C-alpha cells in the first residue's frame, strides 16, 4: 500500500473515536466511501470547495470534534490559506491536515497540482507540527498520535518513499555515523535514500527525520559540527531559519537543498523533477561536494 492507501485505512480506524470527523473536498471521496457509509455524519465531503472544507473543520473543532482535513497539497494549504490562519489558528482550535501530491507526485499534471511551498506556508503559522513520512509504514503511528491531540498538524504524504521505514524519527535519527566533527546531513522524509546514496563514499554523517516541525534543535546541536546540509523534499531553505537560529551561537556553514522556486513548465515523472531540482543522488552529490570543497582564495 502507498501512503495514501495507508492513510485511508488508518483514518477508518481512528473514526471509531466519535470525536473524529473527516472533511473532504471530493479528493479521495471514493476511497472514503466505505467509511462514510459506516460513520454517516462524520465523513463530510463538501464538494470542490476548499474554503468551506477548512471553515467546516474550524466549526467542527469549535464544537469539540477532531477534524482530519484532506486534499492535494496546493488545494489544502494554498487555496484556503486564510481559512487555515483564521478559521483554525485565530479561533484557537486545531485540525489535522493531511495532503497528498507533495511537491511533484503528479508531475505530468503540471504546475497547478504541484505543492512545493506547502511546508513553508504552514511554517508562517505558530506551533504547528509538520510530519513528512518517508515510508508508508511510518504513516499509521503518526496519524494516530496526531488525532489524539488537540493542536494543529500537517501530515504530508507522497508517492515517493525510502526503501525502509523509520517509525520513530521525530527526533533526528542517525542513520549513518561518520564520527565526531564530520559534516552533518539532515534528510527529511522520502529524500533519505537519495541522500544516503549521494554521500555513500563521503565522510558525512546522515540523520533522518520525518518531523521538520518542531525541528529537533537539541539533536541538531548535539550532532552538528561546522558544516550542516539540509535535504528537504519541499521548497529549498524552508528549515534554514530554524537551523540558523539553533546554531546562532556557533560558527557554522549551512547548505539548504530542496525544491527550487521556479515554475519549470515541464511534465515528466517525479524522478525527472528530482533530477531537475538536483535532488537525485547525483545532483545531491554535486551540491554536497561543492559545499565541502574548500573554496579557493579569490585572486
Amino acid at each position, binding site marked *: 500500500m502507498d501512503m495514501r492507501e495507508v492513510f485511508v485505512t488508518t483514518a477508518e480506524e481512528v473514526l471509531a473515536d466519535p470525536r473524529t470527523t473527516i472533511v473532504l473536498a471530493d479528493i479521495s471521496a471514493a476511497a472514503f466511501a466505505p467509511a462514510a457509509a459506516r460513520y454517516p*455524519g462524520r465523513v463530510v465531503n*463538501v464538494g470542490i470547495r476548499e*474554503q468551506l472544507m477548512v*471553515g467546516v473543520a474550524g*466549526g*467542527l473543532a*469549535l*464544537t469539540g470534534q477532531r477534524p482530519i482535513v484532506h486534499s492535494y497539497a496546493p488545494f489544502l494549504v494554498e487555496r484556503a490559506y486564510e481559512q487555515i490562519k483564521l478559521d483554525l489558528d485565530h*479561533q484557537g482550535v486545531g485540525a489535522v491536515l493531511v495532503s497528498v501530491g507533495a511537491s511533484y507526485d503528479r508531475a505530468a499534471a503540471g504546475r497547478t497540482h504541484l505543492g512545493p511551498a506547502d511546508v513553508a506556508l504552514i511554517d508562517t503559522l505558530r506551533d504547528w507540527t509538520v510530519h513528512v513520512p518517508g515510508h508508508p509504514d511510518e504513516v499509521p503511528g503518526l496519524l494516530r498520535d496526531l488525532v489524539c491531540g488537540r493542536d494543529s498538524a500537517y501530515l504530508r504524504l507522497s508517492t515517493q518513499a525510502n526503501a525502509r521505514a523509520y517509525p520513530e524519527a521525530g527526533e533526528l535519527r542517525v542513520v549513518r555515523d561518520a564520527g565526531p566533527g564530520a559534516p552533518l546531513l539532515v534528510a527529511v522524509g522520502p529524500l533519505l535514500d537519495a541522500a544516503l546514496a549521494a554521500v555513500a563514499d563521503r565522510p558525512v554523517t546522515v540523520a533522518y527525520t520525518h518531523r521538520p516541525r518542531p525541528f529537533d534543535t537539541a539533536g541538531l546541536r548535539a550532532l552538528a559540527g561546522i558544516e550542516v546540509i539540509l535535504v528537504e523534499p519541499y521548497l529549498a531553505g524552508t528549515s534554514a531559519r530554524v537551523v540558523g537560529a539553533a546554531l546562532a551561537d556557533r560558527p557554522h556553514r549551512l547548505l539548504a537543498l530542496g525544491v527550487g522556486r521556479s515554475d519549470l513548465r515541464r511534465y515528466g515523472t517525479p524522478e525527472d523533477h528530482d533530477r531537475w531540482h538536483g535532488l537525485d543522488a547525483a545532483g545531491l552529490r554535486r551540491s554536497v561536494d561543492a559545499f565541502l570543497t574548500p573554496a579557493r582564495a579569490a585572486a
Partner: protein
Amino acid sequence: MTTTTATDPALLGALLDRVRAGREFGANVYSTLDVLQVLYDRVLRITPETVDDPDRDRFLLSKGHAVAGYYALLAAKGFVPVAWLDDQGGPESRLGDHPDRLLVPGVEIGSGSLGHGLGLGVGTALGLRAQGRTDPRVYVLLGDAELDEGSNHEAIAYAGATGLGNLTAIVLDNRSASHGWPGGAASRFTVNGWTAETVDGRDHAALHTALTGHDHHRPHVVVAVVTDGE
C-alpha cells in the same frame, strides 16, 4: 430556556454611547442593533452562565465590523462587564474593532475578514449534529456586501444540498454591496434549497416571526432590510 427579557433601549443607547466615546459610528453599527436585540432578547438560548454549555445556541457574528452594538448588547446582557466598554480598541482593551472569541466571553468566533462566519457555522452545525445535539441552533449574521465573498456561496450551496436544518443565516441588507443583488439576497439561498424570509430589519415583531416560524428541516435565511439611516 429562552431569554425573553427585553433590553431597555435607553440602557442600550447609553452603553453604545459609552463604546462610542464621542467618535462617529458608521451606519452599519445602527442598522445591526435591532436584529441583535431581537436575537438576544427573544431567540437565542444563551446566558452568561451557559457560554460553555455544549447545548447552547450559537450566534456567530460574521460581519465583525458591526461590533459596537454587539459589545453594548453583550454588556447589557451581562456577558461582559460594562466597564470593558470604556477605551474600546485601546491598548489594554479586550474589545477590538473586530471581536476575538478568546478575549470576549460570549463571542463564538473571532471575525473581521469577511466571508468566514458561514463556513464556521456550517462546521458548527455539522459538529452538533455528529454529537446528536438536535436542540441547539446555529445563527450566523452576515452583511449583504459580505455576500460578495465567494466563500459564502460555497457554504450556501453545501448547506442547502445537505439540508442542514439547524443553521440560520441572517443577512443584514443595508444595500451596501457595490454591485447589488438583483432579485434580492434571499434568492441566492432559496435556489439552493433554503427557506427564506425577507423582512423590515427595524420591525422587531417581523424579525422574531421570520427567525422562528420555519420548519427546521432545511437551512433558513432571514434577510433583514434596512434602508433608512443607511
